[in-house]
């Protein structure tokens, strides 16, 4: 904790509503303690805007500790900003220098329409998971937990994939606006576990079809998604999804 303060020049995307045009608007954020988080800096800017009777910058955030996946914006062209393995809310102002210009934009993808300013609609992600991103087991029908042994390495791999927070940075960073990393993370998590085995083929086919129906693009192996993922989810999950998909089609699923 150093108590140092800086001034930053912001260019923030302002768009009044879903179907209206937007533009970058300049704001100067003065006396910003470098111990502040990035979103706290935006809170301070908003306080000043409200004080002047102007509409505050709309942005989503909730837990402010990097786990809920609610926040996210492009910061100088990078999803969630310059810190690897971190969400926007985990970014601190000590990562910026006095006088620096910061361009702040919403996620941009056909699958994520802008609702207002930095707020986008990510309901497509919910619909992808609704298309089979679960294990069909009723409440009360579960067997004794330790009756299903899972090798530790498999379980760890499943956990690596399950760590996805659904923030959408992978889509925002991809030049094709593909949702492959998000979709493949859930497919991997469930395909790696014995509990997910019975629905393995049906699941991957349905989820991939839903992903395409939502208007997300195709994967061209750029690796941008992995680079910005706040949970460092590896791109090998996409390879696994493609394998799973091929295997399912070969076995006759979805035909």
């Amino acid at each position, binding site marked *: 904790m150093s108590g140092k303060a800086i001034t930053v020049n912001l260019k923030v995307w302002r768009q009044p509503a879903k179907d209206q045009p937007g533009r970058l608007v300049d704001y100067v954020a003065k006396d910003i303690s470098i111990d502040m988080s990035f979103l706290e800096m935006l809170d301070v800017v908003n306080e000043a805007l409200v004080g002047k009777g102007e509409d*505050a910058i709309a942005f989503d955030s909730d837990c402010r500790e990097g*786990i809920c996946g609610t926040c996210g914006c492009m910061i100088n062209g990078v999803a969630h900003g310059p810190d690897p393995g971190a969400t926007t809310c985990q970014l601190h102002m000590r990562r910026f220098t006095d006088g620096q210009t910061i361009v702040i934009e919403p996620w941009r993808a056909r699958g994520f329409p802008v609702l207002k300013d930095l707020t986008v609609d990510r309901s497509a992600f919910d619909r992808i998971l609704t*298309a089979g991103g679960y294990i069909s087991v009723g409440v009360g029908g579960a067997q004794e*937990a330790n009756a299903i042994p*899972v090798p530790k390495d498999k379980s760890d791999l499943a956990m690596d994939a*399950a760590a996805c927070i659904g923030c959408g940075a992978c889509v925002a960073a991809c030049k094709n606006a593909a949702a492959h990393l998000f979709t493949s993370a859930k497919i991997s998590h469930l395909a790696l576990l014995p509990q997910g085995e019975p629905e393995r083929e049906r699941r991957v086919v349905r989820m991939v079809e839903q992903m395409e129906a939502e208007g997300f693009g195709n994967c061209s192996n750029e690796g941008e998604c992995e680079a910005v993922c706040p949970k460092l989810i590896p791109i090998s999950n996409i390879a696994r999804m493609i394998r799973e998909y091929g295997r399912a089609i070969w076995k006759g699923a979805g035909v």
Partner: protein
Amino acid sequence: MTLDSKIPAGSLAGKWERRKFENKLVNPANRRKYEVIIVGTGLAGASAAAALGEQGYRVKLFCILDSARRAHSIAAQGGINAAKNYRNDGDSVYRLFYDTVKGGDYRAREANVYRLAQLSVNIIDQCVATGVPFAREYGGLLDNRSFGGAQVARTFYARGQTGQQLLLGAYQSMLRQVDAGNVTLYTRREMLDVVVVDGQARGIVARNLITGELERHEGQAVLLCTGGYGTVYYLSTNAVNCNVTAAWRAHKRGALFANPCFTQIHPTCIPVSGDHQSKLTLMSESLRNDGRVWVPKTKGDRRPPEQIPEGERDYYLERRYPSFGNLVPRDVASRAAKLQSDEGHGVGDTGLAVYLDFKDAIQRLGIDVIKARYGNLFEMYDRITAEDPYKVPMRIYPAIHYTMGGLWVDYNLESTIPGLFVLGEANFSDHGANRLGASALMQGLADGYFIAPYTVANYLANAKLPKVSTDQDAFKEAASASQARIDKVLGVKGSRTVRQLHRELGHVMWDHVGMARNAAGLQEALGKIRTLRDGFWHDVRVPGEKNNLNPMLDYAGRVADYMEFGELLTLDALRRNESCGGHFREEFQTPEGEALRDDANFSYVAAWEFTGVGVEPRLHKEPLTFEEAHPSQRSYK
């Protein structure tokens, strides 16, 4: 009004079995005729929606965020308790029950807690079946660890993200019912009122946060799963959208609010660094398994920690509580940290912090083991404070974390409004005056997966539920009252922002109704809150429009409710002339500074009835009786 807790007769162990048998059932073919409204998609809401949808009821599920997956259950780090006794270390349903009643400082209902302990084992089975990737051992079986306040290893965990994985498990089970057409999801909706028709909860008014439209939804039962009220303190470990609005509006419609003064302070949070701060970050208390808490013996010692020799350090938890040491329950650890800071032993710039030191653990176990156990937490700490906890001790301080109080419910989780059920943190029922670590997740899932599906069905089977329409007067009146409140807050056009007013309220609450309370301070707080509330309605400034996405307007509505609720919390603290669990009244303590309960006069649930804003609420008491776990002075020495 008499409070009937509806606890079944018979032996403690047989009560839930008996209730399940007594309950009336709804024929599977008839279930489609019932519509159940669930508000909130955390562990309780998502699991209730999954379970009720599965049974064939039509469920309408509401959440304030853009996706059901983001509810604040997701932030729970440490784990979930279950009496599986996989470690063969003496655990049992009875022990989990006993620990929870004792940990709650004998202010919880025995019957509820016993049921919770019984269901804990089913929860783990259910979660594993749905694909929750709990930590495992090389043999492929589940791993356990011990967690704050427990002497057995009964905590199941998924790295430092247990809440996330459990929530995603429940969310996925819920989505399966969306897929099946049984659950309809309404995201970015905020419940603003419960609609009561002929004394029964028959619907809600919800605001579409994108369009600002007020929607009326009817149903045969309403389940509130809307979490706790920790953000009344402004700074807390809760997410910034957590709020009391749904519960408070239900309270104003007749649901009693129980034990609001039972708030939990979590001992291991990153200390406050400045006024800009919007929330506090919790460091999982699993850190106390290996970290040692200490302060310098000399008051005001400003030397960096590595220059303070071993002999000049006070490991005060180990000194005061030799048998539990650094693992004493949260309330005890928190107060001990406050005491050290108040006496001038605090560390860091503000003096409001103590050290949590891993040096010995790193020496004993090696840095790799520590990294495997706590790597993500250490990284999180480093990111926020720019200090490396592998090299220098962490600085920690208590912060508001969880609220044990909530809407009063009977054994069936039904509030004093028939047909209005309350689940999870939003109710008051299982944790008494203090919640043990790793038991919030347990309660959320027990309520949603295993209790509400039985008790809600019983209500639907028994109640006379005439057809209602959203054009009825009760719906119109509720919607226009909500609209009037929105118009009023936009119309003030004053000079202070919502955040400023919220922060001021938070300061009053933390200073006077926080970790330590006394009658004079509480009286003072009551006056300050009333003044602030007045200031809010005369001087708040809310920008933007009501018919567009406007987060500032949403925030204003929630803070306006806190301005009323804060008074109730404070009053409850003032009237409870004893110390118990998270409620510490300075006037009532033992010579050693421990909480001093008054079982003769305060062994009751304080359930408050709303009588008007600024008007003294009416107190109803539900006496607590203990047949199994006999109240004793908690001792962790």
